[in-house]
Each structure stands twice: as C-alpha cells, then as structure tokens.
C-alpha cells in the first residue's frame, strides 16, 4: 500500500468501523435513539464516500446498500430489530474483509457479502408492508421550522397539534441523560449591585446543555418599570453529567442576599428513556408559558437572551409556573402517542445539542514516530545519568568546575524528567479502547451459546501506555472468554440457583500507586478450590499431602496444562490458556491473581505498570557486574545477623526478618558469577516481592538508584531466563534488569 490517500483511508475506516460496532451494539438496546442512528448513518456514509474517493468501488457499493438501509431506519420507515443489528454487525465483518483486501492481509469474504446484501433485501421488503406506519412516522420528521409555526398556533388558539409532531419533539431527545432543574430567582437589586444573571447563565452553559425558561410574572407595568431592577426569573434545565457538588459550587455565589436560587437533580427514568427524561419541565407548565405568549419558549442561554426578554417586557404575564417532574415514559411509541395529552402539543423542542465539547486541536501521529521520540527521550535520560557521573568525576579534580557542572546537571534533570513524563503522557490511551470491543465478543458469544450475558465496564477512561494496552488485549479476550464459557451458567441453571438469568461480566480499571488494576469479574458459577486441589493432585502437579492456602490453590490454575473442565470448547480452548495469560501479563511486568467463591463468581485481578518504557531501577553489584532491579519490587535491603540465617533441609536457606522466614537466593550462584561476598552476613540482602511472594537476594553492594530505560533483549537476541531486559548505564555499559517474578518462583 504505497498510495498515501489509500493509507489514510484505511486508517480512517479502521476507526470508523470501531465506532460503528459500538454504535450498533448500543442501537440494539435503544433502537429508537436518534442520535445513535444518525451516528451510524453518518459513519456508513463516510465509508461510502471515502471508498469512492480512493476508487474502491466494490466497497463503496457495498456501503451504499447499507447506507440506504440505514437511511430508512433514520427516517423511521424501519425500526432496528435485533435481527437487523445482527445484519449490521455482519456487514461490519464484510466491510472489514474489504479492508483486509486493501491492506493485503486477506481477501473479500464474498460469501458474507452476498448473504448480507440478500438480507438487506429482506428488511427493505418489509418496508412496503408498513407503509401506513411509515407515513405516520414520516410526520415525526417534521422540520423544526414547521414545528415552530405549530407552536405558535397552539399558543394562540389552543388547537390540537399533530400528535406525531409533539411526539417527535420529545422522542428526539437523547435518552439517557442526567440533569438538573434549576430555579433562578435573583434579588431585584442584583443589577444595581453590579452583578448580572447572564454571568451565571453563561457559566451554567459551560456545564452542559442548558435550556432556559423565563418567567415574566413579576414584571411591573412598563410605566412603573425601573430598568435597574431585575424582575425576570428563570426556570432552567441543565443536561449534564456533572456532580451536584459542582453545580453547588457555582450557585454558592447566589445564596442569600434575597436570591432564591435552587436546583434538584433529575435522573433519567429507568425504562424506555425515549420520551421522559426531557420532561424536566412539565408539559402543562410549558403550555402555560406558551399561553403566556412567550415567543421563544426555550431560549438558548446566549447573550441575546436578555435582549429578547427585554422585548417581551410589555407582553402579558404568565402564571407562575411550578416545576414538576415529567411523567414516566411509556414503553411503546404508539402507546405514548395515544396517551399524549392535548397540552403536550405545545411542547417546545428543546434544542438539545450534542454536548458542546471544547475543541481540542489534535493531530494524528504514527505510533512509530512516538516510539522513535520515546527512544530519543530514553537516550537523553541515559545521557543525563552520564552527565551526572561526569560531574562527580570532575568534582574530584576541580571542585569549582564540578560544582558548576553539578548545578547544571541538576537543572537539566528537571527538564529531562518533565520530558520523560510528557512523552509518557502522550503515549497513554484509555484502557476502554480494549474494553469496548469486548461488547461484540460477549454479544456474539451469548447469542451463539444461548446464554444471557451483560458486559459492564467501569473506569474505561483509566489510562495506560499504548503498548501495554495493546499487549493486554490478548489476555483480556482470553479471560473474558473464560468467564463467558466456564463462569456464566446458562439461564436455566441460573434461574434454578435463584440468580438473575442474565449473567454479568464486569471489566473494571482503576489506578493505584503507579499501577493500573484491571479486574475481570463474573457472577457465574465460580471455582471450587477443593476441585482445583484434587485436579492438581490427579495431574501430579502437587502431592496430596501439601498444605496450601486458598490463594495458593488458585495460583495452581496458572500451571502449564492445568484445566478443570474436561470438555474442549472452541471458545476458550483446552485450558492451556491460563499459563499463557500469566506469561503475557508477566511480560508486561504485571501480576495476575484469581479469587473465586463457588456459586457466586470469579474475580481475576491484573496489576500492570503504567508504562513499560521506563522504570525506577536500583543498581546492584554482583561480582564485577552491575544489575538493575525494578525498585517497585524491592521491599528493603538488610545485612542479616548470623542468627537470622536458617538452613532447612530441601527448602534451602531462609532469612528470618521480623518473624517472617523468607527464602534466600544467592544471586551469584544463579548468575554464575564470582562474588565479592559469599555470605549474606557480609554482603547485602535485598528483599524483593512479586505478587505476595517474597524472596531474599544476596548481592554485593547497592550502587545507585535512578530511572532507567528498558530495552528488550529480544530485539536483537532472545529471551534469557531470569532477565527481564537490559538498560544502559551512565558509563554507556549494558546492565541487565533482573526478572523478579522468575527469581521469586
């Protein structure tokens, strides 16, 4: 692929396809959500257009068919059924196969393409059978302009408007929104005090979608009007995800002083949120406002607000309006239409826009370039430590010069650290980017295997280095599949055990002291530690006499070739998985732990470093060679007394530290080096920890402690057991980073 335009197209489509997949999965559950349908339509349209531009006519043609289908969904002619969602998802696979061909990594799946195209026909033909419906639905799409005129006529003659129009006004809302209902009654003296309600309104507007309803009831006659007094007050609807505390913090400046400013949260209704959440102001109330002849029922909080209100000053006053919660929304649109009350006709169409996002300028950068940049920053970090060393040497020769250099090195250190932090920041991506694709995996699995599974995601915005995130994908798929396959029971079994027939898998990410914790939790059958133990005994992995804690038993699951399920499933394989998952996680310098309660579910917890590129390292001498130990694994360093060293048959040597017996490994023996000190009482003992296992390492001396850039040995060599990587020291020499997990086990 040498054509840059084509390359760009492929990149763009890759992103769009991901977005499409998420969109379709959401649409399946909220088939009427207009914003979703629009997004999906737009995406498909972009693919079609882009494909045409780069002369991929087959692809453009294929996308065109789906665009047509989606157009009908958009216009309300067809409703998106679960079957259609399946078709749309299949079409994504079709589109992906086109992309494979363009990338040269595969071929177009003609069979799938033909099947899906045929299926479109099926959906389109159903259109004709619902023509009568579609006419009605079409009205729903009345453009805003017409609607406004209806609103006006409604206001004057209280006539019955077309219900579908009202329907649309409500139905078009974004459903799952959360918001607040505010009452803003300011002191009449406010303007005189140099304050301005507009300031608050503008501030509120930055929080989310704000719709203002002015109340004119207390306006005096024009002849009595003092232009420096404030007689207007407002009801406002603020659609935002912000916390009440945040709102409170803004409103706090308008407490007291005769102001009457308050708010209350409005949660979206639990069921079919299509209609109701918008009704932050009751229909009745709105009608009243309208009857009161407010020309612009909902005024966007803009500067023009006040001026337009000023114009209204002479208009008759509305009754004071009480805010009320909207009625809960009904399930079926048809039903709702039937129920629509006359007042509803005049419901204004609150112009809920997509939340206004502060436009952040961004550019797309190839990961390769970032990698290079990071490498260079890595070099700078190394040079910095060389400088450090140099300044020490110069200090020995010429104190003045040394002092000057040391000062410079120190200043530079700050910039280098900052540079390092920044480049790491740039490489961070939300872990949600690998969580969300799981929705499709879960959906497809559940459908195929007649299970009911809900995937919940928490903390998807937790950020992790791109490389870590990417390499986490494989293990994550594996673990989720395990949960679906072996964890979640079929609906009947779940019912029998008085559980919700729909199983839940929770993907959760959070940050914890330089680590990201990723948890995969299911409420399935769980794992019985006794079974695990017996199985391990049967496989002769452990002896039956061994006494293990529950935690240790679950760790057995990670032994190669261990599995408790006898049957082989196409999804989660033959149980060879868990040890490879563990290997993958450890390659990321992370840890994995399982806990489970039979009947209740299983929790797999991954602890991952934020980044792989740079770690804080402790340099130690073993013989004449300097090794680096990740500082995060080092608990302490001690020189034990002879009485602390215990020799135990077959278990080797232990060091007793504050009542705890920790096994001792003489690093020089393990690394076949000639040490300066052969005895722990002469050298130094590092206590390192991985997961909950501790290990004492005998070393000669601690040299230094500083951030190091990790270089993979495998780049130019092979994986060497006991070594996690290499780094370059201040003097330019190579130092190996010890692989603590493998030393501990």
């Amino acid at each position, binding site marked *: 692929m040498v054509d840059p335009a084509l390359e760009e197209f492929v990149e763009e489509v890759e992103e769009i396809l991901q977005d499409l997949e998420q969109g379709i999965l959401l649409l399946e559950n909220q088939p009427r959500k207009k914003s979703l349908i629009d997004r999906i339509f737009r995406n498909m349209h972009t693919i079609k257009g882009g494909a045409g531009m780069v002369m991929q006519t087959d692809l453009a043609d294929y996308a065109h068919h789906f665009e047509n289908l989606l157009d009908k969904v958009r216009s309300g002619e067809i409703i998106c059924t679960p079957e259609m969602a399946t078709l749309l998802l299949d079409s994504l696979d079709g589109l992906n196969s086109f992309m494979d061909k363009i990338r040269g990594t595969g071929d177009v799946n003609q069979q799938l393409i033909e099947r899906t195209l045929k299926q479109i026909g099926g959906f389109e033909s159903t259109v004709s059978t619902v023509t009568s419906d579609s006419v009605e639905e079409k009205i729903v799409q009345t453009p805003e302009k017409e609607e406004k005129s209806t609103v006006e006529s409604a206001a004057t003659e209280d006539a019955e408007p077309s219900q579908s129009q009202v329907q649309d006004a409500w139905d078009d809302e974004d459903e799952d929104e959360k918001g607040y209902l505010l009452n803003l009654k300011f002191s009449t003296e406010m303007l005189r005090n140099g304050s301005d309600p507009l300031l608050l309104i503008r501030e509120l507007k930055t929080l989310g979608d704000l719709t203002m309803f002015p109340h004119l009831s207390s306006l005096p006659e024009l002849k009595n009007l003092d232009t420096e007094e404030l007689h207007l007050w407002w009801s406002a609807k603020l659609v935002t995800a912000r916390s009440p505390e945040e709102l409170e913090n803004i409103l706090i400046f308008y407490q007291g002083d005769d102001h009457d400013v308050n708010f209350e949260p409005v949660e979206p209704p639990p069921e079919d949120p299509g209609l109701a959440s918008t009704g932050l102001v009751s229909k009745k109330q709105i009608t009243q406002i309208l009857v009161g002849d407010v020309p612009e029922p909902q005024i966007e909080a803009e500067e023009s607000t006040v001026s337009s209100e000023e114009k209204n000053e002479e208009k008759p006053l509305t009754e004071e309006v009480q805010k009320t919660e909207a009625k809960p929304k009904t399930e079926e649109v048809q039903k709702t239409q039937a129920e629509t009350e006359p007042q509803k006709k005049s419901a204004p169409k609150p112009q809920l826009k997509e939340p206004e996002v502060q436009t952040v300028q961004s550019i797309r950068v190839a990961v390769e370039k970032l990698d290079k940049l990071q490498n260079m920053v*890595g070099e700078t970090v190394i040079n910095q430590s060389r400088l450090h060393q140099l300044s020490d040497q110069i200090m020995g020769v010429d104190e003045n010069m040394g002092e000057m250099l040391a000062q410079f090195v120190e200043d530079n250190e700050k910039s280098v650290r900052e540079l390092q932090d920044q480049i790491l920041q740039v490489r961070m991506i939300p872990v949600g980017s690998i969580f969300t694709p799981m929705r499709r995996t879960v959906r497809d699995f559940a459908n195929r295997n007649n299970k009911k599974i809900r995937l919940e995601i928490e903390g998807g915005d937790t950020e992790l280095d791109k490389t870590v995130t990417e390499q986490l994908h494989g293990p994550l798929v594996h673990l989720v599949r395990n949960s679906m396959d072996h964890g979640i029971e079929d609906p009947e079994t779940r019912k029998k055990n008085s559980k919700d027939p729909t199983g839940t898998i929770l993907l959760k990410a959070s940050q914890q002291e330089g680590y990201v914790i990723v948890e995969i939790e299911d409420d399935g059958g769980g794992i019985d530690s006794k079974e695990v133990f017996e199985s391990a005994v049967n496989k002769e992995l452990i002896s039956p006499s061994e006494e293990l804690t529950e935690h240790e038993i679950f760790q057995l699951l990670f032994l190669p070739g261990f599995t408790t399920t006898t049957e082989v499933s196409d999804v989660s394989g033959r149980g060879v998985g868990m040890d490879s998952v563990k290997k993958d996680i450890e390659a990321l310098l992370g840890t994995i732990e399982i806990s489970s309660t039979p009947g209740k579910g299983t929790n797999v917890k991954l602890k991952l470093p934020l980044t792989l590129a740079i770690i804080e390292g402790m340099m130690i001498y073993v013989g004449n060679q300097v090794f680096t130990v990740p500082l995060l694994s080092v608990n302490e360093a001690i020189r034990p007394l002879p009485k602390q060293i215990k020799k135990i048959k077959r278990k080797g040597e232990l060091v007793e530290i504050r009542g705890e017996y920790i096994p001792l490994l003489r690093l020089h023996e393990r690394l076949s080096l000639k040490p300066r000190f052969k005895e722990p009482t002469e050298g130094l003992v590092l206590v390192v920890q991985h997961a909950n296992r501790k290990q004492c390492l005998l070393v000669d001396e601690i040299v230094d402690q500083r951030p190091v850039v990790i270089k993979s040995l495998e780049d130019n060599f092979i994986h*060497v057991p006991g070594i996690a990587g*290499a780094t370059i020291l201040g003097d330019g020499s190579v130092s190996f980073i010890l692989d603590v997990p493998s030393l501990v086990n």
Partner: protein
Amino acid sequence: MNNSYMGKVDFSAEELEEMNLEVTHSEGAQLITFILGEEKYGLDILKVRELISYPEGLTQIPGMPDFIVGMFNLRGLVIPVMDLRTKFGMSSEELHEFSVIIIVQVEEKNIGLIVDSVADVIFVKEEDIQETTEMAVHVDIKFIKGVAKTKDEMVILMDIDHLLSKTQFESLMEL
C-alpha cells in the same frame, strides 16, 4: 591482503554502501571477506550493517555458552556479540588491534561477530560460486553455503542466516 581497507577498522553503513555502489551491477554477489584462523571467509555485504573495533565493556549474559561473549551498547541498541573462533572451536586468540566486530543484520536482529580481521570487499560472479559438499575447514559444514573462487584465492561463504537464526539462538537455551 594488500588492499586499501587494511588497517582501517571502523566502517559506517554509509561507507559500506559506497563501496557497494562502486561495483558494476551484474549477476553475482558482493562480499565482505574476513580472516578467521587460517582461512578467509566471506559474507554477503547486504547483511552487514557496520564494522566496529572491539568495544570496551562487554556485559556477560548469565547462563550463556562461551561463544556468546556478552552484550554491548551500540548507540542505544543492545547488541549481543558472538566470538566465531570460540564458536567453531578454534583456539581463542587474544584480541588485538585488528580484531573487528562485524555487525550483521539477520531476521531484523543486529548481532556482532568477532573475527580476526576484515580483509576486503570483493565481487564474485555467480558462476564462480560452488555449492559445498565436503570441505576440510574449521567451521562446522552446516554453516557453510559454498566456496567462491577468485583469481588467486578461495573464499568460504558463511551461511550467517543459518548461523544466527532464531532457532539456533533458541537452542542456546538448551545448552
């Protein structure tokens, strides 16, 4: 060995590239020749990244056989070094001023090879290359691709793709 490269030890990739361009393009291969023991070996110049003198401070890799002498830092790359003498069971000689490390690139990995000295860059025509069946040389025959005969000498072609293949390296772990 009366050639202009004698005595010079470090060559950058650009210099090598230049040498490469000097030769007319016809069927055949351009080789870097080097001395190992009593024999002259050649390897495809396209595999050679650069030539460097023996670096200071190699770091030994724990648990590796003798002929993997260690790793060193080449402008930020961590590169393993293999001593070909030790590898092929020749008496390991004191490293001297002409000892050279040839950095080669195989399977996208950069690896250093210690040789006695670098001799020349030569061009051999395809018809001058013979496949080997049997030969009395020090080097294990399975790492020999063939022999190139030039007007007055014989150059043994080393099969470094095989010598430095992933499988070969992985077999190190079993030692």
